[in-house]
């Protein structure tokens, strides 16, 4: 039996008069790896922002691991085990790679109010584990702000992985990466999902990546879910072809 780790019911969001999220119902099973697709402005990022507390929904309910988290601020959502990586890498530019990851580990350990302990001795193992997992050990002492674009996105993912989250949201994890970097990043995501049983939800514009790495797809259009299902089902759907997939010549 695999219970739903995430359940979303009747989620609504308006910005001014614009209806950006229209009564979305959505669920994820523990261990699932899915993608949200849709044209620009479909509401993918807003949906993730609503789930992680960056925006407050106007209506609806978000339940994570049996607990309602609707409207909680981002830091409280994060503490419950939901992590996210951003489309534009959002890192700590004037700290080293290792310090970036270690600070994330400390936040997850709730050690951030330890005033007199040495930061260099807390969460070191977990930091090393995450750096190794993401293949960034050799870059650990470089300043994050001075990394190449692809490495910044890698670090973005590493920060999100610190402290073993249960649910990971990835907003265009391969945007701005070379083909080689994108391939190895998605391989890492697959491994996290397979070996560590991490539940993953990602958005992506590259349909090749989507169809290869997601076992279930949700197509958003104008804030509403058009179709949900396996890649084959979505591909066969006429509306999906019309509003989105058609552009990608599949």
């Amino acid at each position, binding site marked *: 039996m695999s219970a739903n780790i995430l359940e979303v019911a009747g989620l609504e969001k308006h910005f001014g008069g614009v209806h950006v999220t229209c009564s979305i119902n959505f669920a994820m099973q523990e261990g699932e790896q899915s993608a949200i697709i849709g044209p620009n402005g479909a509401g993918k990022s807003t949906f993730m922002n609503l789930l992680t507390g960056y925006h407050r929904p106007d209506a609806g309910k978000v339940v994570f691991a049996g607990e309602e988290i609707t409207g909680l601020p981002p*830091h409280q959502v994060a503490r419950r085990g939901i992590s996210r990586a951003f489309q534009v890498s959002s890192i700590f*530019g*004037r*700290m080293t790679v290792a310090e970036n990851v270690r*600070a*994330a580990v400390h936040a997850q350990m709730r050690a951030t109010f*330890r005033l007199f302990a040495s*930061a260099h001795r807390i969460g070191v193992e977990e930091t090393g584990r995450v750096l190794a997992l993401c293949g960034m050990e050799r870059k650990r002492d470089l300043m994050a702000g001075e990394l190449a674009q692809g490495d910044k996105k890698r670090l973005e993912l590493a920060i999100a992985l610190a402290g073993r989250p249960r649910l990971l949201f990835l907003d265009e994890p391969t945007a701005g990466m070379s083909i080689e970097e994108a391939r190895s990043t998605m391989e890492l995501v697959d491994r996290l999902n397979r070996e560590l049983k991490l539940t993953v939800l990602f958005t992506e514009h590259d349909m090749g990546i989507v169809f290869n790495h997601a076992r279930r797809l949700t197509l958003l259009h104008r804030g509403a879910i058009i179709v949900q299902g396996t890649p084959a089902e979505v591909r066969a759907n006429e509306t999906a072809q019309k509003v989105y997939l058609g552009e990608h010549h599949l």
Partner: protein
Amino acid sequence: MSATADSPGLWSRLYAAYGLSGPVAMLMFALFLLVPLLPGEFWTHVGTEVLILGLFAMSFNLLYGYMGQISFGHAAFFGVGAYATAMLFTALKTPAGQIGIPQFLASLLAGPPVAALAALVIGFFCVRLTGIYFAMLTLAFGEMLFYIVFSWYSFTKGDDGIQGLLPPPFFQDSANFYYFTLAIVTAAVFVMWRITESPFGYTLRTLRDNQRRAAFLGTNVRTHMLANFVIAGAFAGVAGALWGPFSRSVNPGLLGWGESGIAVFMTLIGGAGAIVGPLLGSVIYTLLQAVVKMYTVYWPLTIGSVILLIVLFAPGGILGIVDRRIRAARAEGEAKEGDPGAGPRDAPAPP
């Protein structure tokens, strides 16, 4: 030429472990120890001022260099600490104006907690904002406190200030008071350094670099900012407590924006990236002021020009320049040896 080439042993290891703070702090401490050996009381007096204002500036830098927020009202806590000590001092001294050593020490202890309390109240509002809005709110609160102290004659003696804060005979000796101040400032630097190297200290750096992301890691941004605001206020209060007995009086100007500006200037000059940067800034600022004022009345023009040059050509302050040189030299050395040595922990540039 580099520190590595000169002395591959202790200094290089200190740098690798603590960034510039380690070697610079030890060097400065050694030089500070020697100051009273200079002939005449003048330099000892200047040295005491350097230490007290340096501590004040270092407390400001907990907000600026580590949390990335600039406060134009930090002197409020320096002044509140000074007044708390001055008032207790006045209450405890004999009608003849004398005070015993225990009473003197007790009055010093009053400064930091009262300053911290003021910081808790003011910080509660200020940490809701960031950037220029944070700066403006701290300025507004600082000026509010200044006017309260300035106009509340019955309680604070208003613009007359509080006079006659003559310390016990032992501390009237300028060298004794100097070493007493040096001991307190050294202890304060050590505690502040521990805090900046703790998980809390690195969490502050994440707030400096990227508040939104820090929140998504599970950090409650406001409570961490408030805690740091209170800590910075408390250390400003330590400096304030020392100021009264040092200058034998306190006045409302200690809370004003001019005094807050001194902390900003010292930090910009010395460098915000290391814990002792503002202390170095205090050495330069105070010495420059002492010398310039001997010869001209154009001190504001002088310090203005210095700040202009620093901001334009050395945005990391003096320590920022030195740190860049050392990094470059070490990078060159590593390229030759192929040894990926550990980098320094201090970030050189201000926000």
